[in-house]
């Protein structure tokens, strides 16, 4: 069981959110789990925390297809915020469009954070998804 200070779940599908929350219970110990229905809301929350010097989420579960601001746009904005703290971002999608995978590859190279790509369905959250390996280093 890993203790994580803050986790963001950004997804407009309540079932997926329910699933992630449920799976987190068994692998992570976290008192600050925030849910956002789109990228815009999540971005604004991160930005506010960053400005106020409050803890930045250690782990973000990020859906790609969302209204208003999708996962990719959220990534762009987050990278632009230039946050020094390490973040593990898990992109979660049901898309099997190879274009999405290529896009992820492109982002991975220029993203200062750990960027995982996870296809739905998810049955279990690995410790790697919570940044265990990276945190150890």
């Amino acid at each position, binding site marked *: 069981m890993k203790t994580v200070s803050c986790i963001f779940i950004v997804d407009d*599908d309540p079932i997926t959110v*329910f699933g992630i929350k449920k799976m987190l219970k068994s692998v992570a110990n976290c008192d600050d789990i925030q849910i956002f229905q789109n990228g815009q809301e999540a971005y604004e929350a991160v930005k506010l925390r960053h400005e106020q010097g409050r803890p930045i989420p250690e782990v973000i579960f990020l859906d790609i297809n969302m209204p208003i601001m999708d996962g990719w746009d959220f990534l762009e904005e987050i990278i632009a915020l230039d946050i020094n703290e390490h973040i593990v971002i898990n992109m979660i999608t*049901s*898309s099997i469009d190879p274009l999405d995978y290529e896009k992820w590859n492109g982002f991975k190279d220029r993203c200062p954070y750990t960027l995982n790509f996870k296809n*739905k*369905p*998810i049955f279990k959250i690995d410790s790697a998804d919570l940044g265990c390996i990276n945190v150890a280093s």
Partner: protein
Amino acid sequence: MKAAESIDQFYLLKQLPKATALLCKEGRLLDASCSWLELFNLPPQNGDLKTKVYNLFPENSELNKKLKENKPFTIQHKRAAANGTRYLKSYFSPWFDKEENVVGTIVQTDDITMEVEKDKKIKWLENVLETKVEVSKTGWWEFDVETETLTWCNETKRIHQVPENYTPTTSEAINFYKTGYSQNKVGMLFHRVKENQESYDTKLMLVTFQGQERWVHVTGKPIVKNGKVTKVFGTIKDIHEQEMAETRVKEHQQLLSTLIDSLPLNVYVKDLESRKMLVNKGECNYFGKTVGELIGKNDFDLYDEEIAKVSRQEDIEVMKHLTPIIGKETTSTLNGKTTYFLTSKIPHFDLEGKVCGLIGMSLDITSMKKKEEELHNLIDITSMQNQKLVSFAHIVSHNLRSHSANFSMLLGFLNSENDPKERQRIIDMLSQASDNLLETLGNLNQVVDINSNTSATKKKLNLKKNIVKVLQNFSAVLEKNDSKIINNVSEDIVVSCVPAYLDSIILNLVSNAVKYKSKNRSPLIIIDAIKSSEGILLSISDNGMGIDLNKYGDKIFGMYKTFHNRKDAKGFGLYLVRNQIEAMGGSITVQSEVDKGTTFNVYFNEDS
């Protein structure tokens, strides 16, 4: 007495009108008439017997011997005189005295120069004629009306292939012509020349003695004396080879002109000044002019200056550098109609190998071009549809996968969950997921319907009436939101549209305008329609919250794309509208400004 007698005798001799001389037995000149002396250029004789007659006839060495035979004879001889050579003929006969004793010779001499020269001329003329006959291979024939005899010259006989001793009769001669036209014609012509003095000159078919059919050129001409035809003279010439060659040339020409005329090409021959010297039917049809109207014309007479300049430049290149243009794509505009050609221009040489113009051939490929264009359009449409299909496949897979993934996940939870409360929660979620899946399937079905049913029957629909109808059904929502609608669409605009699609398009756009209204203003929706040459444009404008198109521009018509935080936004309406419009061959665009409003422009395609 004797002397007196003799003087009388010689005096008489002198006066004889015919040149006469007397020779003694020794062949010396006793005396002669003045005319004889003149002929031989001798002075008057004084009886000294000094003039030897043998000297006067130097060519006749045997004269002496002949004189001694005492028999009459004749010799022909020549003398050089001041007015040229004279031809003479002298008659020698013995001179008897009363006792029938030979005392000498009497010589009478005629000047036959004229006759000799006439003979010579006749011989020359005969020669000329013979040569002429030989060279020209023209035979002659002559018919004597009185004796009814027909005479053929040797060449005429050769033409008939009869032996040289053959003597024809008139009916035989006519029978040599081929039965039918030739024989009838020659019979008639021969009759007319005799009776009506009509000359003739014609080509007929002869069947020779050896049975060969040969073309001959025959003429006939009456020889008239005292108003009566006495003879008929004519010529005959074997023209078989020329005639056959001419026929072959004509056949070739016929073949060539048929070929050129029947080619599905526009063919023309131009001279060095680019004037048309020959045109075929195709070329005439293209210009809608006759051959006579086109010959001698250049491109400046036929086309606009711009086109003519280009064409003339091509002509000059071909004729100057002798490089043919083969299968070049060109366009010509005639009377406002553009035709695409595959044009070839080849230099044209005269028999000496010098360029004398060019031969042009143009194939009308307008219909092929049109087909090519249609094909390109079709390819564009196909690739667009293909692209749509691919993106649709991704949407489908993504949307269906997201639901099935949820099922898998929830079922996984259910398996390991023992808490009845939690199980119930999971089961609720499962049924929710199932509802979502059904809805998604419903949506996808709608889209598939639109795209697979492109031939859904279009009808002519009055735009205004349909808008009013949709607005009435939607009036409750409009009233609730305190919306105002200005419908500027004129009564007479008719669009060709699938009825259900038109309703869906109007409803979606109007309900969007209400749904995304400004927080500060009551909705104001303005509906306009403009008819133009490109079709009908329907525009629906609102004063709502607007959308940042720089940010979302390309996504606004995407499936499940929503841009405002509204619970009832599903991101399906505009996607559906776009599919419906495009399925009918139209298009939709959007203009928007945040917090000002949005305008959707719908273009209806009236063609298909």
